[in-house]
């Protein structure tokens, strides 16, 4: 959806505050935004609440959007910020030193998107947030560190940690 362009007419109608246009935009983007929310928060009810707040803010502040073409990215950022704020209490960055890391783990198998999704959900909160923002949403380490309020080095180490955990989890899923 992120690569998909929204109709300019729809965007202008949303900017005018038309309820039908707002509903149309909601229908087009709800899956994408809810998926981000749910993966960051890892709780259905909380993700629904966050998404509701996000849409309300989007429709109320849409007149402040200077570049209408960046609407989808802007909506994503609002939702991610709210999701991070919601899960701030839960997000805990495990100290990497305490985890047994296997250097240069060999990964010799194929997996699909469904399997990757399952493995992502099993990650610890901190590592999951970092992996989602960098690998799935495409943020840089700098942007990620600003969003999560952590150092860039922490972001890098947590991403590495998340990947090593994912390899283990996917291998287990393949063996099962």
């Amino acid at each position: 959806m992120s690569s998909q362009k929204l109709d300019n007419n729809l965007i202008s109608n949303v900017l005018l505050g038309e309820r039908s246009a707002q509903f149309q935009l909601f229908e087009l983007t709800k899956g994408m935004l809810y998926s981000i929310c749910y993966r960051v928060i890892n709780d259905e009810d909380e993700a629904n609440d966050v998404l509701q707040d996000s849409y309300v803010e989007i429709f109320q502040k849409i007149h402040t959007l200077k570049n209408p073409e960046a609407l989808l990215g802007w909506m994503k950022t609002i939702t991610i910020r709210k999701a991070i704020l919601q899960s701030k209490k839960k997000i805990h960055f495990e100290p990497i030193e305490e985890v047994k890391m296997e250097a240069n783990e060999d990964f010799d198998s194929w997996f699909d998107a469904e399997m990757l999704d399952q493995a992502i959900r099993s990650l610890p909160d901190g590592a999951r947030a970092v992996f989602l923002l960098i690998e799935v949403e495409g943020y840089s380490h700098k942007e990620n560190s600003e969003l999560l309020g952590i150092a860039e080095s922490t972001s890098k180490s947590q991403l590495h940690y998340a990947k090593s955990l994912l390899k283990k989890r996917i291998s287990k899923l393949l063996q099962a």
Partner: protein
Amino acid sequence: MRKLPEHSPKSDLWSKIQAQKDFDAQVKAHASNLPLKEPKADLWSAIESELDQKTPVIPLWKYGVVAASLVLILAISGIAYLEVGTKDMREPVITEKITTTPELPTSKESKDTGDNSTTVPQIQSQLAENHIPQNQPIKKETIAPVGIPKLELADLIIENPVVPHLEITKTPEMEGPKTLHKVRISWGLKEQPKFKTTLGLGIPEDISERQIGRANQNSSSIKIKIKRE
């Protein structure tokens, strides 16, 4: 049945397949195709109701405009008040002229000069310098006593009086018969009922005062005691 010719793949195919096993490459390929989740069905109605409830956000510049206009109104009204107020000002009518009394030399000054005595002519000269009007003698006007003329009237002579002679006869005082009883009257006196007994005296006992109804009489009642002497 003729056999179709066999074609062999490129020699680097296996290596390419193995390369696809790379974890990062697979993550990159699948990240954008992760399964989409759907929110709850009634989410839109909740959003819509919240949008209807919330008042539209007023931009900050509007608050600024309101504040600036208020300041402007206050400034204009303040200036107008000051302008009009000064024009209407009238000098108050002075009904009393306050004059300062001459400063008498204090004890400190006198000490400095070393002269403790200030003479009356000196004070008078100081008063003259300050142009203070001196006490002038007050004219006292005395009112002459008003005389009342005496009226000279002739003596009144009654020739034929209506009552020729008034005789006042003394009525003898009515003296009551001598009695041996003493009467004591008391209004509201709280007297403790006294009970006397004649036990052992051989006199028959009078139990009239011992009766509760008679002994504890109301304070507002009049008691009459009769004693025989």
